[in-house]
């Protein structure tokens, strides 16, 4: 085998590139998301137009060429994600963005990305489904799909931004997590967060770049699926001389197909555990007034934005309420929720679906407190009163 080739010049990093943005901007969440990707070092986008995601693609189409990057509008979402995965193996930080119907189409290659441990960021600007549903209206109906959508078992990391500023920040975090854990990572936005326009502070030149863990051994000793202590393997890109074989089939540490039960068990177990065992590093939560709380609101994404209002309203009415906001929805913060559930009597879970995360909350709380979903099939946001009424129903 030949020695490791000089690495092809990396795409311009944010620090040395021109055209990076600094300061305050009046952006919608989709635009902020695109800028977050750019800040994290993403220079490859492949997507297919779909409401309410299109502004991400449009912004990337305008911005990436300025930065020496590549924008591809593909023929569908199947190819959008496949292209992003190919680009990732080509050494790029790659991203795709879509909404419900397109997210459904991506499930196939999400499996490929998970199985081949290919870093990339998948943004889902959720809209109300099933099927075409309400294309221009808000929903959080894809949360469980993001967790379980592709066939087979694997660990998942998903962020749930609740403002344009967070669309920017979470996209950066998603890129870092994708490269750090060598896997596709989700940003679960929604139509409201995607389209609402707010002040967004950008610091693209200063953002810490997402870094890929490169092999430290020569090609002849390199095993592309040999995990390090944190269960994450290093990754060699195409053309670097490592001559990696990548397959969606069950494979051994060398990356070669090995179709037996033992290899399957070991591989799938690790795909789950590399998220589970690094949970403390991944999970991000925001707590408001949980210390003395008797009732707890558990929410995430845009629904949590309404829950902030509900929390103030409840406190005004003399209810000792607290809020646990899941900044990362997956992996699920079982430990913290369990602790909080020991102390509260009731937990309400406002979400813009018919009760997805509330099932997860019920599982974790396991009867220690009463759990009630505040559900909505999508189309509009909760009113803070609805959430407070749900809390009051208990006390």
């Amino acid at each position, binding site marked *: 085998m030949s020695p490791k080739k000089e690495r092809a010049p990396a795409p311009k990093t944010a620090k040395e590139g021109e055209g990076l943005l600094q300061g305050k901007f009046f952006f919608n969440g989709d635009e902020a998301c695109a800028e977050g990707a750019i800040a994290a070092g993403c220079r490859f986008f492949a997507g297919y137009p779909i409401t309410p995601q299109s502004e991400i693609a449009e912004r990337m189409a305008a911005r990436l*060429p300025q930065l020496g990057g*590549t924008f591809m509008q593909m023929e569908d979402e199947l190819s959008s994600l*496949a*292209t992003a995965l*190919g680009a990732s193996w080509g050494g790029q930080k790659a991203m795709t963005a879509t909404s419900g119907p397109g997210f459904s189409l991506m499930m196939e290659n999400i499996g*490929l990305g998970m199985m081949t441990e290919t870093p990339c960021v998948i943004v889902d600007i959720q809209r109300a489904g099933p099927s075409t549903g309400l294309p221009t209206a808000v929903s959080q109906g894809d949360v469980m799909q993001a967790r379980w959508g592709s066939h087979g078992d694997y660990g998942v990391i998903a962020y749930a931004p609740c403002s344009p500023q967070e669309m920017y920040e979470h996209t950066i975090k998603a890129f870092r997590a994708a490269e750090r854990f060598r896997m596709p990572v989700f940003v679960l936005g929604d139509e409201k967060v995607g389209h609402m326009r707010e002040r967004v502070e950008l610091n693209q030149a200063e953002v810490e770049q997402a870094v890929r863990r490169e092999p430290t051994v020569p090609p002849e000793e390199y095993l592309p699926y040999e995990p390090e202590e944190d269960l994450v393997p290093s990754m060699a890109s195409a053309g670097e*001389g*490592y001559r990696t074989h990548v397959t969606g089939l069950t494979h051994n540490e060398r990356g070669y197909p090995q179709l037996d039960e033992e290899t399957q068990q070991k591989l799938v177990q690790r795909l789950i555990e590399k998220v589970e065992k690094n949970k403390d590093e991944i999970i991000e939560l925001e707590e408001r007034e949980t210390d003395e709380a008797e009732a707890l609101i558990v929410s995430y994404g845009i629904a949590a934005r309404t829950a902030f209002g509900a929390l103030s309203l409840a406190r005004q009415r003399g209810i000792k309420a607290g809020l646990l906001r899941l900044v990362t929805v997956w992996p699920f913060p079982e430990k913290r929720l369990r602790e909080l559930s020991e102390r509260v009597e009731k937990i309400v879970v406002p979400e813009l679906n018919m009760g997805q995360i509330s099932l997860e909350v019920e599982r974790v709380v396991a009867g220690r407190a009463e759990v009630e979903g505040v559900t909505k099939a999508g189309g509009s946001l909760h009113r803070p009163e609805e959430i407070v009424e749900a809390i009051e129903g208990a006390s």
Partner: protein
Amino acid sequence: MSVKTKKKNVRRRFKRRGTHPLQKYLREGRLPHIWCPGCGLGSALNCLCQAFSDEGFGLDELAVVSGIGCSGRAAGYLATDSYHTTHGRAIPFATGLKLAQPELNVTVFSGDGDLFGIGGNHFIHAARRNIDLTVICINNYNFGMTGGQFGPTTPQGANSTTSPYGNRERPFNLPALASSAGAVYVARWTTLHVRALKEAIGEALRKDGFSFVEVLSPCPTSYGRRNEMGDGREELRYYREKSVIKDGADPREAAIESENQEEIVLGKFLDEEERPSYPRVAKASLGS
């Protein structure tokens, strides 16, 4: 050099190294392959390796992407960076790889069901965009790995496990499809015509733009058996009898429509002089 001396030299080399002359393109420890006796995939893969060698490609200048199916396993036997992707998505995966690393020579090696059934949309769009890829389609007229179902290239009337009364659908004419979708290089050979096939693959590899080589290949286990075509050797004999080489022919003449096809047209149908491929177009539009 006479053919005899050439053969002698090859034998000598073999003896000296104890390995196949194209061994360097194959992954150590991955052989034997999974393909059936009489299958044409080995010959096609050999031609691809020969073309790599003849065109002077080093392993690190190459990447091969496959989809799913018997042909999809080819990537796993090659010593280049190689990718065995999802069913039908080899072309978009290769598109991402090529655009991320434009200096890599990226080949897609996959089957007719993969590239034109589930992946048909990606094929026509990559051709339309003139992405600088070499796409080699091993056409064995059926879905072999899943047990011999009819596919997008199965001739009318042919038997398969899902067309027990004969296939009622009209098949694609792949060279015509590729040409009309925008490919800049289109050729068809069979696994019998190994020299011509190797040269065609070599030309396709060197071509800037979307190049397409269709390889007609026997599938005695799944297709030949159900259509009274005999074993692999007899299927090759069938190709020898039916093949007519017509370089430069209108690809519309290349249809393989029925079981009782009178002739099968082979050759190089299209070799467009200069049409900028995708990475070049994208750069030019930015004025750099």
